[in-house]
């Protein structure tokens, strides 16, 4: 494990400036309610505008509609979007991971069918991993796909499926052959499922504040054609693990409270609160600077062809805890009864952070699971 310091090149800085100019024009401060990181609103029109500039699926090859840009370029775009609180929800999953999975493991036909549409910002994807009896122990999934003449019949239930009620497609980890003794990682496969398929039912699992992100998706004899199997049969676990490496360690794991902090500074400027929060801002900018450098160095490593799974697990574990720490520091320091319908944007955002951020150290793999992954990787290091 080694995080090598890196910095943005002239071209990369110019991309950063282009994204900043775009946001300043499209979403000037005060014109929109900032989103809290990747739990962002879905705004297809906004996704299409980003796609016009080549910023959706940008790391995918040109032949499939992408821009052949690097992981660092994607880091820059994602970073600027998230710190601005931009509504990136519609293309988020496709851009971060599904596009990569289809490129890496999919058939030529699947690449042709999905990648250009992803890069145009058109398609929204959900991910089907957890089930009522499978959470952190993901390999125990039991939703079954059984082979028929030209496809698969699926029965079972997926839960915590974000956005299934709004998205188009579902990348699902399913059991395509029965669990063998002692090898629960075998017999799993990834299938692409149309969320409008007959027999597929979507019902909301209301979030703790009543909002609708999560769903339960039940399969009742849902037919999926053979051509929708991603990669080799039985390789779903391996593919899924690879996918997780893309999912971890990026700006989405440490920038979620930034809009809230920025808004605090905006509202505190020139008031007596400014002095109260000054030292805290010192600590926050230092930590953000430090964690950002780690996260950026992971993106740079990916561009050298490495799969820095230990490094990205360490950054995600630290970043998501940091997000919660930021909120706790704000709550501790500022003695107001913030309310979700306050006139103050800062108060509204803070209330939302307090209520939703416990999920930050759970989504995409709990920090306990991440520690287990990372600590095994630490063992080989020289002492």
């Amino acid at each position: 494990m080694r995080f090598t310091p890196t910095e943005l090149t002239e071209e990369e800085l110019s991309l950063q400036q282009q994204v900043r100019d775009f946001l300043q024009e499209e979403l000037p401060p005060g014109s929109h309610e900032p989103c809290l990181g990747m739990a962002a609103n879905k705004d297809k029109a906004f996704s299409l505008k980003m796609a016009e500039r080549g910023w959706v699926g940008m790391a995918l090859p040109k032949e499939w509609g992408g821009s052949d840009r690097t992981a660092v370029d994607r880091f820059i775009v994602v970073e600027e979007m998230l710190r601005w609180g931009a509504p990136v929800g519609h293309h988020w999953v496709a851009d971060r991971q599904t596009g990569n999975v289809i490129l890496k493991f999919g058939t030529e036909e699947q690449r042709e069918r999905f990648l250009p549409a992803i890069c145009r910002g058109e398609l929204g994807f959900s991910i089907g991993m957890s089930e009522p009896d499978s959470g952190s122990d993901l390999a125990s999934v039991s939703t079954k796909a059984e082979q028929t003449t030209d496809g698969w019949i699926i029965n079972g239930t997926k839960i915590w499926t974000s956005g299934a009620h709004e998205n188009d497609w579902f990348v699902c980890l399913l059991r395509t052959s029965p669990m063998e003794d002692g090898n629960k990682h075998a017999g799993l496969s990834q299938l692409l499922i149309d969320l409008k398929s007959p027999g597929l039912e979507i019902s909301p699992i209301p979030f703790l504040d009543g909002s609708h992100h999560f769903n339960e998706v039940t399969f009742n004899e849902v037919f999926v054609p053979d051509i929708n199997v991603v990669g080799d049969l039985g390789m779903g676990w391996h593919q899924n693990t690879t996918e997780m490496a893309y999912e971890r360690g990026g700006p989405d794991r440490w920038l979620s409270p930034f809009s809230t902090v920025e808004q605090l500074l905006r509202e505190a400027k020139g008031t007596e609160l400014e002095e109260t929060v000054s030292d805290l801002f010192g600590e926050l900018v230092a930590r953000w600077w430090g964690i950002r450098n780690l996260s950026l160095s992971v993106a740079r490593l990916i561009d050298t062809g490495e799969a820095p799974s230990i490094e990205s697990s360490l950054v995600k574990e630290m970043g998501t805890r940091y997000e919660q720490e930021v909120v706790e520091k704000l709550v501790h320091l500022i003695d107001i009864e913030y309310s979700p319908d306050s006139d103050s944007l800062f108060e509204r955002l803070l209330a939302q952070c307090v209520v939703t951020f416990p999920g930050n150290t759970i989504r995409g793999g709990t920090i306990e699971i991440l520690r287990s992954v990372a600590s095994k990787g630490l063992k080989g290091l020289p002492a």
Partner: protein
Amino acid sequence: MTEATGVDELVTETADRLFTQICDHESVQNAEAAGAAPEIWSAFAETGFPWISIDEDRGGSGGTLLDALEVLRLVGYHAAPIPAAETGVLGGWLLASSGHEIPAGPVTVLPNGNNITASVSGDQMTLAGTCTRVPWARIAERIAVLVEVDGQSMVASVNPKDCVIQPMTNMAGEPRDTVCFDGAIAPASPCVAGVNPESFRFRGALSRAALMAGAIEKMSQLTVTYTNDRIQFGRPVARFQAVQQHLVWGAQEAALARMAAETAGREANRGPAFFEIAAAKLITNQAAARATKACHQAHGAMGMTQEYPLHHYSRRLWSWRKEYGGDAEWSKWLGNAAVSQGAEGLYALVTGGSSVLS
């Protein structure tokens, strides 16, 4: 040199090998008891390492500030009981920036020298006042005293024999002596532009960040090894999720501290780096606190003994955390910088650092 902003790999290899040979647990322990480690210093000085980043025509060893900070990182990693930072990037820098000769032996500086008063007559300076917590003053050949006289930063190269030195230590048993200057007379000369009490404070913080990054990394690695070797309930304690938490926290803080120190070093090596250094010192300070807690907890009672080496690193970290600025000083400095940027400039500060502060 691997690249324009990189560290000479030979420096890393040679320094690591040297310290591995001469700074084992026992010799570091003995140095603490004796209050000095002349044989470790001699072996270190023989390589020319103490004077890296000081131009050869000024009596140094050449090389970049990055190379010098890499040596300091390894000094921290091996808990080498020598005034490496004081002799090179701090004292050597002050002497070379003011045209003084670089002595063959150790040099020290005044981390808290604000209360020293000076009067200048020609090229001689007469000093008065007492300075506390001067690293290794008892073995120094020269004390590089930086003072402002009529708005001009000047350095006096003081012979410690002209001072009264009272031995004191920090929590790691490293010499942090009290030096009384009353009546000391020493040759003095003005500094080149950019060398002043403020830039010295930042450079001191940068030196500590490098030392601390090394010590935290070593502590983290010791902890991984120990918990994988230590068997309880029939398996290595590292297999327990509760212990894994400490391993991961230690490794994260090590990575964060090293990244911060190296990034600050890179910026300082090529221009103004006030933001990066302030952030790096605050980060390493807090990383030291979190990592020592995690690593001690994972070691159990063994980490609380003198016979096991964890304390060489943890006690140094607790001490270095307070040298050249504790958490309050740097968060205040950074807070002023952040607030002065305003909401619109806040993220540009995170990404652009000193380049956006003018």
